[in-house]
Each structure stands twice: as C-alpha cells, then as structure tokens.
C-alpha cells in the first residue's frame, strides 16, 4: 500500500518549549486518519509541518514521496488544507470565496464540481451571502469545499469540528465518509474522542507525544483491565466513596455513571459494604466495555 505520509523522529521546539517529541507515524493512501488529543497536544503544529508551513527541528517528513523541506512548492499544489479558523474571506460571498480558491489553484469551480457537490449543495442557496454572516456549520462546509476544489490527493483538516454544534459535527463526518470513494487521503484532528470511531486509524496524542496508533476498535480492545460502570443517585458522594475504597484502581466520572477498575482486576463484593458505610445504598454496578476515552485516560 502506498504511503501518503511518512514521518520519523519529528521534534519541534518553540523556544524552550518542546511542542512535538519524537513523532513517527505513517498514513496510507485512501485512509481516514485521525489525531485525537486535547489543546496543546501538538496537533496544529504537526499539521503545519505536514502542509510545509513549518519546518521540523529534527526528523524527516515525507508527504506523497516528496520532501517537505525541498519540494514544498509541488506539495502545496496537491494538498487541500483547512486550518483551525476556517480561513475564509469574511467580506467575500460564498461563491466568491470558492471562485477565489479555485483560481488560485489554477482550476475552475466547474471542473471539480462533482467532487464538492454533496457538500456545497447545502450552502449553494446562500451563495451570495457574505462568508462572515454564515453560521458555524455553514462556514465549515464552505471551508471544506474551498479545500477540495482543486481535487487534492491529501486533505488536511485541523480541528474542523471545533466550535460547531453536535448536529453539524455529525453531518460533517458523514460528508467526509462520502469523499472516500474518490480515493482522497484524509487526516483530521479533533479533541472529541467519539469522533475517533469514524476513522480508519487513530493516533492518540498528548503533550507532543503519540500515545498509540491503532484502529479505533483495537484501541478500545486494548484497554488492559475489566471496566465497570457504577450508578447512584448522589454522584458526588459516590465518586468520593469509590475513591476511598481500598481495592479501587481508578475511578473516573463518565456522564451519569462512574467508570472504575479494580486493583486485583476482579470484582469484589466488599465494595457494596464500603459504599453502604459511606451512605450509598442505591448503587448499581455492571461490567461494561471500554470506549476510546477510557483507553486514553489509561494511557495518559
């Protein structure tokens, strides 16, 4: 399988701060590859190196077989980049923005219209509206259309779903899925763990380091212990009570329940007694399967 991105030993410093620590990974052609991690993990820095906007201090980065340092001119023609703030011209209309990017990349809207049709059709009725006046979801679709208009082989999306409501986020990933049939390789970064499930492979990244690279399913399966879900009416009391239990390994709040693991990795009845002593009687415990976030917490 052809490798679209090959990174090895990438280090990047901003002054004394090390933003990327020995990053190595590869992305295959046609893959949907996700980078999941919180703010400050290094996602944007890494993407800027991939798109040749920054140079690494150490290490090698090859994109589409080309060297990021020397062949950046050719690379830039074949990458579609959607940076964190969408980078649209606020005082140009939807249509004007699209035309501009098409022209800059030496093509026309007509030429690759079929590629962006599924996305652009949502906002085409608003084509004369100024980009600054669009909602978050619409800006997202326009920015994506602009990034795709020159039919790039690699699509780089930096936090495309941040600041956008849950419905638009979901729609966005659906649109990306449809792009796969054109054999475009897509890399995207996001702080939302649940979006990891939509990728072929995912790299968990935290504080400049890659914690693991794997298929989402396997990441979940990689959770090393038995996971239990605990529910009770008084959440705060429950968490404190669980944490004070001797046999507990980890206890993390997860929405309406608490996910726990045991030191001995086996469920121990004595926990009910302990909780009763702490004043919790209506507790409900059952074993559950780990999600990506559980694994992330484990790896951190």
């Amino acid at each position, binding site marked *: 399988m052809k490798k679209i991105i090959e990174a090895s030993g990438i280090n990047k410093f901003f002054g004394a701060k090390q933003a990327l620590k020995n990053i190595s990974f590869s992305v295959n052609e046609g893959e949907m590859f996700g980078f999941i*991690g*919180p*703010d*400050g*993990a290094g996602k944007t820095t890494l993407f800027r190196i991939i798109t040749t906007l920054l140079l690494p201090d150490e290490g090698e980065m090859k994109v589409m077989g080309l060297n990021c340092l020397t062949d950046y001119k050719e690379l830039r023609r074949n990458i579609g980049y959607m940076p964190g703030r969408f980078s649209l011209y606020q005082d140009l209309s939807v249509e004007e923005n699209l035309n501009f990017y098409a022209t800059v990349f030496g093509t026309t809207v007509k030429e690759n219209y079929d590629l962006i049709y599924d996305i652009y059709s949502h906002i085409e009725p608003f084509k004369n509206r100024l980009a600054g006046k669009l*909602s*978050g979801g619409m800006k997202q679709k326009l920015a994506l259309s602009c990034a795709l208009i020159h039919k790039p082989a690699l699509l780089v999306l930096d936090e495309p779903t*941040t*600041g*956008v*409501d*849950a*419905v*638009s986020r*979901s729609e966005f990933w659906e649109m990306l899925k449809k792009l796969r049939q054109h054999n475009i390789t897509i890399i995207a970064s996001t*702080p*939302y*763990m*649940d979006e990891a499930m939509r990728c072929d492979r995912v790299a968990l990244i*935290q504080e400049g380091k890659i914690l693991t690279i794997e298929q989402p399913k396997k990441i979940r399966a990689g959770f090393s212990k038995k996971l239990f879900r605990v529910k*009770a*009416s*008084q*959440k*705060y009391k429950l*968490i404190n009570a669980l944490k004070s239990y001797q046999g507990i390994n980890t206890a*993390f*709040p*997860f*929405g*309406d329940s608490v996910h726990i693991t045991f030191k001995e990795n086996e469920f121990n009845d004595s926990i009910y007694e302990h909780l009763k002593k702490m004043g919790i009687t*209506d507790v409900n415990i059952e074993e559950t399967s780990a999600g990506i*976030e559980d694994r*992330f*917490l484990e790896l*951190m």
Partner: protein
Amino acid sequence: MTRENSVLKRNKKMKNNPVISVKNLVKKFGSFTANENLNFEVYEGEIFGFLGANGAGKTTAIRILTGLSELTSGEVTVAGFNAKKQPEQIKKNIGYMCQKFSLYEDMTVKENIILYGGIYGMRMKLIRERMHSLLERLNFEEYRDSLIADLPLGLKQKLAFSVAILHEPRIVFLDEPTSGVDPVTRRQFWEMIYETADRGITVFVTTHYMEEAEYCDRVSIMSEGKIVALDTPAELKKQYQVGSMDEVFIKIARPGIN
C-alpha cells in the same frame, strides 16, 4: 430513592429559594430577537447546565444574568437582586469564569489571586487564608510564584475556577470551562464543580460536550432564542427515548434526522 426523586425532593425544598429567577425574558438587538420569552429558575446548590448551539442565544442570556447586558423586557432576579435595577449588586455577588481568559498571563498565581480578591472587596487576611487552602487543595503550592503563561492549560482552568469562587459567591457562572482540555483534567474540573455545589454554591455552566450535560442536575437547551427543553438529563433521555444527551440534542435540533 431514585435519582429523579432525590433531585425533585431537593428542588421542593429550594423552590422557595431560587438563586436565579427568569420570567418572560426578552432581548432584542434592533429587530433581531436574540432571546424570546425565556422562563426558568435555578435553585440553590444546583448544577445547572445551559446548552445550545452557537448563535442560539446562550451568550446573550448569560450576559443579562451576570449584569453585563440590559434586558429588553421581562423580570430577572439573580442572587436576590433585580437585573434591571441592581446589576452592580449582582456583579458583586456572583463569580464568573469565561472561556480561556480569566487570569493575567504576565502575572503570577499569587498576584492573580490577590488581585481578584481585592476586586471583590476581600481583606488581605482572608485572601491569604483562602489562597493557602486553595493552593493546598489543588496541590499547587509549588506554582505559587509561577507566571500564568507558563502553566499548562488544564492547570490554568482549575486555577481560574478557584479564583472565580474565591469570594464564596452564591452562584458562579462558567462559560465553556472545559473546552479543549484533556480528559483527565476535565474530570478533575467536574469534581471541583461537584465539591463546589456541595458547599451550597450554585453552578451555572455552559458546555459543548453533551456528555458533560449528564453531570448536571438539570439542563436547559436553547435553540434560536427559545428554550426548547428543560429537565433532568435522565428525564430528557426518557422523553426522547434515547441513550445519551448527544442524541437528545440531535432529536431536538433536527427532528427529521434519525
């Protein structure tokens, strides 16, 4: 006792004691109606989640509740003060943490705490006392003289929250406090919120993470200027027959989608 019952029971006790009371709140900007006829109450010690898409009118409503903006019509009472007539009193009695900017980056932890303590009229002795216990609780003692700019984001958020409640207000407003923060810190933050609510401080929080809605006692969902849902997370999930708040949101926002 089921969860809903315990919450309802607490609510009954507090029903005479709403920390926030909003009746027929309307906010217009020219001909554009940002908030249309909002009605809700928030009770003492509650964790109240204020959800909704960008542009739904959340920020507008919060600005009115915190005394930063004037309402067009309606009656709003916060911490016992009328929003129209006594906005300055409101500001003195609430805590506020806005997204990602609360502390001065070029000052140290200690300097920030003293500054905010002073702003809220706390005496030096009290400030020092609270600062000491705050730093101890967060395990921050070693960062006392560090610049805010040098702290990782997670620590900054936790510190900003502690500073927001330094003066022990009746209610604290948190605007997307855990945006972009790593999962561990996010959970620690919510544990801090729980502890705060336990002490009797009401917490009014907005968030984009639907999962965090589950941590709240009650949530309201805003859409296009109106409140379209207001209940406990469990009740909402039951009502829409789904398993997560994410799905509740999708069902409300786009009724046609599966």
